[in-house]
């Protein structure tokens, strides 16, 4: 490992001696400081970075700057959501003085999943999932005019790759795309066309709409349907998609760099991508991330699904099955006799059923991830004819997080506090008196980052702030209220981004 790192650094020194010298000089002076907040990215442009894991060393392959939309949420999530479960490689943008102006953790997709066949076409020779020999990942970074070069360090903090950002690019010649309406507090899915043109784009839209419709009718997305935006992008750029990837006829692979670049330049916000590839042959694929990487860069692992009607299997169920892999990091639940791959932790295939005992008592032997592992009730992850995820896949709060927990990370739904009650009481001394509206409530256990509560008097637009209270407060006395007046109170939980949730109301007579 050390020899490989040395070789890469040696090559880098030969290629970019000035930059390395500068980096070393600045690091030795302790100037390699993180000053992300002091530099603002240029809106309407993004930096696309292609990375490859060569001999287990994260290596930068290519950097391009294109018109596109950078999702600010990724910046906010970049470092603070890293879990201690496993350290990840880091990607840093540095300015000419060696200051880090942006950094993010990242990971490579390690597995690609192959869509199942109908039972009557049982194929015991094709695995359901295969490891990716040379994992690749493409990142969208904000574009900084001050950016001079990128650095990649491995999970143990060793600098493994660096590359200057070509300053010959004239970003001002690139026009930012017209931005569509944005709503940051939502989960955004981008459905993109591949290999369609204007003559058959209507077919793509039809398939995309059926995927959109099904997605919004199944849990957990149906519960949060008002917080899920599915965008349909009539892309005509080549995404490099093809059937027969890795010699498996029903596995469709795409050029990740092209997919991510096209998505970035679509102008849409997105957290996940579904590519519909125009081919009549049944197929698809889904990239599985590792662990909880979704918190940093969920969009890196996308889904591909065919646009035809082979085997009478609708594309929407295939898409949702693969989406379970890509977004939910779910394992296939069907039994396959010769796995031939390494198990990657998922919430629906476990060594024992105790993990989901509080969610479901169903415990079935056999799971494609590992034959001696167990799975909960049947779902779309075993039969495409069951268009729903099982409860463990939805509700799991254990690592690497179920679909609902993942979804909540994006939509940041802040639930109203529970059991909000109020009563008017008399508080008196012998000669003086006041009326107090005593308000009480209970914490909503669905809220994870609740840091305070706000109480308003009134409803809708006509409410006025009464007080702000810490998250460990569950009672408030609104003192010296009128004895004969009716009061309406709204109580909102507030998260650590100062976002307010839906209010709970109470009327005090």
């Amino acid at each position, binding site marked *: 490992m050390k020899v490989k790192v040395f070789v890469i650094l040696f090559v880098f020194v030969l290629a970019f001696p000035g930059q390395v010298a500068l980096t070393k000089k600045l690091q030795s002076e302790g100037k390699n400081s993180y000053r992300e907040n002091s530099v603002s990215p240029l809106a309407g442009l993004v930096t696309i970075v292609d990375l490859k894991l060569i001999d287990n060393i994260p290596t930068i392959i290519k950097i391009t700057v294109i018109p596109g939309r950078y999702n600010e949420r990724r910046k906010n999530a970049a470092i603070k959501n890293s879990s201690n479960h496993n350290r990840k490689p880091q990607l840093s943008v540095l300015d000419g003085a060696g200051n880090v102006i942006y950094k993010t953790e990242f990971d490579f997709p390690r597995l690609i999943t192959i869509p199942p066949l109908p039972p009557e076409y049982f194929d015991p020779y094709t695995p359901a999932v295969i490891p990716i020999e040379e994992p690749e990942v493409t990142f969208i970074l904000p574009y900084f005019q001050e950016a001079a070069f990128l650095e990649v360090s491995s999970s143990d903090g060793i600098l493994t790759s660096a590359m200057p950002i070509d300053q010959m690019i004239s970003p001002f010649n690139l026009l930012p795309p017209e931005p569509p309406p944005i709503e940051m507090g939502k989960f955004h899915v981008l459905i993109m066309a591949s290999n369609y043109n204007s003559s058959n784009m209507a077919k793509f839209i039809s398939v995309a709409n059926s995927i959109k419709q099904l997605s919004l009718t199944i849990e957990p997305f149906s519960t949060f349907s008002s917080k899920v935006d599915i965008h349909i992008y009539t892309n005509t750029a080549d995404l490099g998609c093809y059937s027969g990837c890795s010699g498996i006829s029903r596995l469709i692979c795409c050029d990740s760099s092209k997919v991510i670049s096209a998505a970035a330049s679509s102008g849409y916000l997105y957290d996940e991508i579904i590519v519909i590839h125009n081919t009549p042959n049944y197929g698809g694929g889904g990239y599985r991330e590792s662990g909880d990487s979704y918190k940093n860069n969920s969009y890196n692992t996308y889904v591909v699904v065919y646009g035809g009607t082979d085997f009478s299997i609708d594309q929407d169920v295939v898409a949702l099955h693969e989406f379970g892999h890509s977004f939910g990091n779910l394992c296939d639940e069907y039994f396959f006799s010769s796995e031939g791959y390494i198990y990657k932790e998922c919430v629906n295939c476990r060594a024992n059923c105790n993990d989901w005992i509080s969610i479901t008592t169903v415990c079935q032997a056999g799971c494609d991830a590992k034959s001696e592992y167990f799975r909960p009730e049947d779902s779309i992850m075993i039969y495409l004819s069951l268009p729903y995820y099982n409860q463990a896949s939805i509700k799991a709060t254990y690592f690497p997080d179920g679909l609902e927990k993942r979804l909540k990370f994006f939509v940041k739904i802040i639930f109203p506090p529970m059991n909000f009650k109020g009563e008017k*009481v*008399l*508080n*008196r*001394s*012998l*000669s*003086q*008196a*006041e009326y*107090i509206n*005593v308000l009480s409530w209970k914490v909503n256990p669905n809220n994870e980052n609740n840091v305070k509560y706000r109480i308003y008097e009134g409803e809708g637009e006509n409410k006025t702030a009464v007080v702000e209270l810490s998250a460990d407060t569950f009672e408030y*006395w609104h003192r010296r209220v009128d004895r004969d007046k009716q009061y309406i109170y709204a109580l909102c939980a507030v998260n650590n981004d100062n976002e307010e949730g839906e209010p709970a109301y109470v009327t005090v007579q």
Partner: protein
Amino acid sequence: MRKLFIIIVTVIFSSGIANATDISVELKAHYFHPSEKAFRDIYGGGMMYGGEVSIGVWKGLEVWFGGSYFSKTGELTFTKEETKLKIYPLGGGLKYRLSEGVLSFYIGAGLNYYQYKESNPLGDVSKCGLGYIGKIGSYVKVTGGLLVDLYVNYSYCKIKPADFKINIGGIEAGVGMGYSF
């Protein structure tokens, strides 16, 4: 109140029969049990201290003047915040001794002028009001002019400090030590 004072003084000095031997002075301490439930809930009962002067005017009839002091700390009914109360009743009236001897029973009645102060987080209130008082008791002659007064009083005074009325009177039971000239 002013009227009451004038009446009492007029009675005393127009009677022409008052003399030094008819005057007694005493210091008193009694337990005050408020009539009003809210009073009891907020402050409870407590000791009241004061003094009284009685002047014989005719046979067993005496005029009395007295004052006392009540101070207590309590809690507001809901918030349990601290509240402080002070009551100063000043008054006078007539007493009639039913018997003479070592034990000398008496009954009496009069008017009290109540000065009332209460302070707490709700604010400070200072009020006054006129009430009445009934007395029953017995003097016990100890030796010479020294006497002990065992008594029970009932007082009543309604004041309206807010949009409600309160009775700051109640039952008092106590003992006085005095000297009769």
